[in-house]
Structure formats: structure tokens, C-alpha cells
């Protein structure tokens, strides 16, 4: 009898210990701007990647338990290289969901290549990140600025606007936007009256804007991020410039509207993919996101960070926690159903995203152009 009891206890213990140690923990990284001017987007991305990990950990069929290691790149290339090196040199981390800022993503691709860490960019839009090198480690789930500028140029020339001035920051991100927008705008018959390169931490734009006022553009195109977008828009108002303010995906954040208040009305922004309401899995994503009670919004690129984390975990489930094998699986991503639609990588591991959404700030919110009062001709841009 005694032996039966002890055998039972032993069996129970071993089965318990079996369930406890059944799943190995696998670490994946998230890097984005958690502080600084664009931190709203970084935190939204972090929460979304975290959501993907939490969901996977609740899945009884998952082979591994996942842990998200987060790092702050502050949207600064030098800081980005430091944290990327720290993450990439930690062999317990298998892959990474990396970077919102293009200048940072561009400066870290070498690091990931050198350390053989497969990463998936979730927000940065500079084409060179995937197309500038042939690093098999670097993937991107969101589209590039080539796509959004093509749509941006076509859209406003289609509405009848003819004269532009361009303000861009002098980082790779701003210069890239200037290059592609100029290219597509001239192709569509738009005229560029002047181009102004400004520093990414510039405070005073009155001199540039006075010159712009003299040029009398119909549209001011801005290639840069939220903080200076807010400054330029405020100072445009101070100088009485009535032109339409057309930004890029870099200003598509709630922080832009909060920082400007009523002045944000009528600003335009373009982004790859669609708003979560219109994404194939958007409703499901936002329901899960709200359930977890994150204090901040997922922001525009949250669904991409969520998708990137999921694709990485799928690859780990398939190939095991091995960087090289995970990279090989990710490289072959083709026609995979995700919440952002089908994901297929081209020969440079760039997701082919055919869809670009146009947004306009209306009554303190970013509204899809087609649903806005502006599209219905009830309001006019630049008023």
C-alpha cells in the first residue's frame, strides 16, 4: 500500500513538474522610441507587440512560452545602435520587432546583419532599410515611403492643387520623403516652388516660413516627424500662411492632434495599410488590445508591430528557437494571413503592401479621407 501511495505521489509530482517545465521560455525583442517626441507611436507599438506575446502565451498549442525584451531607441540613431548591439549580442534573444524611426532603422541594419539576428521592421518607411542592402536578417512588414508618396502626390494633384513647397528634416527619413515626393509630384504635373531642409530639433521656422509665404504655395508638404510638424504648423498660423498642410506617415499620431488642438484641423497624412477598423483583423485586434487595458492607444503602426511579433513567433514555433532557422523561415514568408491582410515578402524581404490610406485631421481626430466631411465637400482644406 505504502509503495502504491509513494508511486502515486511520485507520478503526480512528475506530472506537475512536467507541466511546469513543459514550455521553454523564448525571448524576442522589441525596439522603438519609448521616450522622446514620437514616443506615443513607440509605446503603442510596444503594447501591440506585448499583446501578441500575451495572446500566444495563453494559447495551449504554443510550443514555447515567450518573453518580450523591450528597449528604447529614443528615435536617435546613436542610441539605436547601442541598444541594437546590446539586444543582438544577447544570444538568448532569437529575433526582434524593431524600429519606428527610419534614421534609426537605417543605422542598425549592419548590427543585425553582423550578429545574425533576424528582425522585422514595424514602422520605419525609408526604402533603403530593405532595398539599400541585401541583409537576409532584415524584414519589413509595413510598406515604404515610395508607396505613400506616390499616393500623396497623385491625391492632391488630383484635387486640383498645383503649387507646392517642401519642408523636410535633414535626416535620411526627411531626405527620402523629399526625394520620392518630388519625383512623383513632378510626374503628376505639380510644381515645386521651393525646398527647405531643416534640422530635426529646430525650434524656430519663421525665417523659412516667411520665405514660403512669399512664394505663395497652395500646399506645404512636410517630410518629418510629429514634434517639428507641430512647431511648423503652429508657426504657419502665426505668420498667417493659409496653405494646406500635407504631412507624411511621420505625423500620423494622436500626439500631433493633442499638441496642436484646433490648429490640426485639415492636416493630411498618408499611411501604408488601413485604419484598424478596415483591416481584415482590425476589430479582433482592437478588442484584444482594449481587453488588456493598456493606458495608451496602439497608434497607427500598432497593428504592424503586432503582426511582426506574430510572424516571428510563428517562425519560432516552426523552426525552434534558433536565429538562423527562424531567419530562413521568415525569408520565405509568402501569402500569410495576418490581421493587416496577406503578407508576402519580395526578394528584399519587403512586404508588398498595395494599400495606402489617406487621412485628414477632422474635429480632433484622424479620419480616413473617404469618410471625412472634406471628401463630402462640406469642409474645405486650408481654411
Amino acid at each position, binding site marked *: 500500500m505504502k509503495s502504491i501511495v509513494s508511486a502515486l505521489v511520485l507520478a503526480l509530482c512528475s506530472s506537475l513538474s512536467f507541466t511546469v517545465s513543459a514550455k521553454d521560455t523564448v525571448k524576442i525583442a522589441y525596439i522603438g522610441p519609448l*521616450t*522622446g*517626441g514620437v*514616443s*506615443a507611436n513607440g509605446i503603442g507599438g510596444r503594447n501591440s507587440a506585448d499583446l501578441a506575446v500575451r495572446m500566444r502565451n495563453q494559447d495551449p498549442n504554443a510550443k514555447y512560452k515567450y518573453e518580450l525584451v523591450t528597449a528604447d531607441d*529614443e528615435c536617435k540613431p546613436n542610441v539605436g545602435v547601442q541598444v541594437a548591439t546590446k539586444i543582438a549580442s544577447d544570444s538568448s534573444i532569437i529575433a526582434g520587432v524593431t524600429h519606428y524611426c527610419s534614421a534609426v532603422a537605417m543605422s542598425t541594419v549592419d548590427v543585425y546583419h553582423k550578429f545574425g539576428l533576424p528582425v522585422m521592421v514595424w514602422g520605419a518607411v525609408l526604402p533603403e532599410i530593405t532595398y539599400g542592402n541585401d541583409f537576409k536578417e532584415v524584414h519589413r512588414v509595413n510598406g515604404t515611403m515610395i508607396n505613400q508618396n506616390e499616393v500623396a502626390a497623385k491625391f492632391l494633384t488630383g484635387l486640383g492643387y498645383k503649387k507646392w513647397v517642401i519642408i523636410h528634416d*535633414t535626416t535620411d527619413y526627411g531626405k527620402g520623403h523629399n526625394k520620392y515626393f518630388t519625383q512623383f509630384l513632378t510626374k503628376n504635373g505639380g510644381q515645386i516652388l*521651393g*525646398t*527647405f*531642409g*531643416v*534640422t530635426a*530639433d*529646430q*525650434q*524656430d521656422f*519663421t*525665417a*523659412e516660413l*516667411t*520665405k514660403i*509665404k*512669399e512664394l505663395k504655395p497652395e500646399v506645404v508638404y512636410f517630410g518629418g516627424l510629429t*514634434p517639428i510638424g*507641430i*512647431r511648423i504648423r*503652429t*508657426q504657419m498660423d*502665426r*505668420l*498667417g500662411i493659409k496653405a494646406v498642410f500635407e504631412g507624411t506617415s511621420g505625423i500620423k499620431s494622436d*500626439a500631433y492632434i*493633442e*499638441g496642436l*488642438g484646433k490648429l490640426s484641423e485639415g492636416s493630411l497624412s498618408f499611411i501604408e495599410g488601413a485604419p484598424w477598423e478596415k483591416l481584415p483583423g482590425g476589430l479582433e485586434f482592437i478588442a484584444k488590445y482594449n481587453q488588456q487595458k493598456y493606458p495608451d492607444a496602439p497608434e497607427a503602426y500598432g497593428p504592424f508591430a503586432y503582426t511582426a511579433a506574430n510572424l516571428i513567433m510563428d517562425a519560432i514555433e516552426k523552426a525552434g528557437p534558433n536565429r538562423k532557422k527562424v531567419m530562413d523561415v521568415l525569408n520565405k514568408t509568402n501569402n500569410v494571413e495576418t490581421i493587416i491582410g496577406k503578407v508576402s515578402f519580395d526578394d528584399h524581404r519587403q512586404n508588398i503592401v498595395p494599400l495606402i490610406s489617406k487621412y485628414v485631421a477632422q474635429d480632433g481626430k484622424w479620419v480616413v479621407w473617404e469618410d471625412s466631411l472634406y471628401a463630402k465637400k462640406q469642409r474645405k482644406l486650408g481654411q
Partner: protein
Amino acid sequence: MSFDIFLQYLLNGLMLGVIYAIVAVGFTLYFGVLDVIKFSHGDILMVGAFAGLTAYIGIAGTFDSPWLQLLVLVLISLSVAAFLGAVIARYLILPLQKAPPINTLLVTLMLGLALREAVRLFYPNGSNPKPFPRLLPTDGIVLGDFTLRSDSLILLLTGIICIVAVQRLITRSKIGLAIRAVAQDSETARIMGINFRQIVLITFMLGSALAALAGLMNGLYYNEVNFSMGLLLGVIGFSAAVVGGLGNFYGAIVGGFLFAGLQTIGAVLLPAILPDVPSAYKDVFAFTVIIIIMGLKPTGLISEKSSERV
């Protein structure tokens, strides 16, 4: 360039110039009285602006009148900066009076960094730019391409009145006389019965309050403040003070307006003359001209020899 556009440039330049001049006057006051360069000046400016913002958040629900809110905001901001200035003078500058000047310079440089990081780390969400309340009226007049908003005009006039008031305080009041006496010869001033320590504290309080005022003006003008705003403003203010003739009140004002003028010219002319050079190089241009002027006139535009200190 049409006349109205020229007026617009002039207004922009004057606005920048007033802010720079106020910062430069602070540098010149400290140097005039105690021969010290206080490199944390720009960060005191930032602390002043954040103190104002905090005061606004604290009282926003209490008073409805924007003017009353502005008054409270200015009083609190200036008091916080003045108190900070007095503490710095009492516990950092005066004890180091006998030490080589480089020590004071280093100590204040490090203090500036500490203040900046403290705001970044401990102010709620401190690393992000903060929207600054729009408390001044925004209506204005438009003459062709020239737009003059009342808030710009109020800020410009406040700045000019402030500079004139400080100049009057120094040249016409008893305290000013004592400050000038200490600046001329602190030993003799002490023998004549002037409380040296008290004068130093007053000078630092005055300089810091001026910095806070510049910070508030900056916030009200751009409707935004951030933890690193004092960094470049400090460097520009210091350069303006040096190019004008460090220790000379009028030199600081000339230097401030000169720097603003150079920046405006740089932003307008550089892209016009050299199409490949973006206006982002305006600071490079302004600093290069300052370097050239310093090479030609090493003691500054209004040097000490030809004028009184402070």
C-alpha cells in the same frame, strides 16, 4: 523682396533677437559682477519655463481669466528661477570664488546637465515636448504678406521693456550702483561698505529671473517647451554675450540681435545663393560669422576698455 515680406523678416528677427538678448544679458551680469561664466544659464531658462507650465496646470481650473493665469504663471516661474539662482550663487559660485575660473565653469556646466536630466526623468512624461498654453490674444493685423499677431507684439514689447528696465535698474538705482561698484572693483566696494555677498546673490537672482522670462517668452511664442530647449539657447546667449563684449550690458543686446539677424539672413540667403545648401545650415552660418568677428575683434564688439562693466 516686397516691403511687407521684409517687415515680416524684421519682426521674426526682432522677436528672436529679444529672447537672445535677454539670455545674453544674464551671462553678462554674472561675468560683470563676479567674472564667472555660468553655463547652467540655459537650463535655468528651461526650468523657469517648466515651472511656469506646472503653475499653469495647477491653477488652470481656479481662474478663468487668461491674464490672471498669466500673472500667476509669470510670478511663480520668475520666483522659482530667482530662488534657484540664489541657491546656485550661495552654494556653488561663492564657495568657488578663490578657485580657478575653469572650476566654476565646469561646476555650472555639470549643474546644467543635472537640471536637464532631472526634468527629463522626473517631470511627468518629461522627455516629450509639452504643449505650452496659449494665454495671449491671437488676433492681429494683416498688411499684404505681413501678419502681426497681438501675442507676438505683446511678447516683443515685454522683452524690450524688460531690457530697458534692467538697464535702468543698473544705471539709476542704488542696487544698480552697488552692482556696478562690485563689478568695477569688488575690494574697494567692500571697503566702501557694500555687502558683497548680498550683491552677488541679487545679481544671480536677477539673471536667473531674466532667464525664466526668456523661457516663458519662448513657450508663449512657440506654444511648446521641452527639456532640451535651454541647450542651444544657452550657447547662443553666451555667444551673443561674448561677441558683444562679455561683461558689457549693451554688448549683450547688440550680440543678441546680431545673432538673430545672422540666423535670419542665413535661412533666407543660403538656399537662394547655394541651391544645394538647405536652410538647416543657418546656425552654421551664424556661428561662422561670429567666429570671424571674434577673430577680428577678440574683445568683442563693445570691448571693456571703451565702456564700463555692466
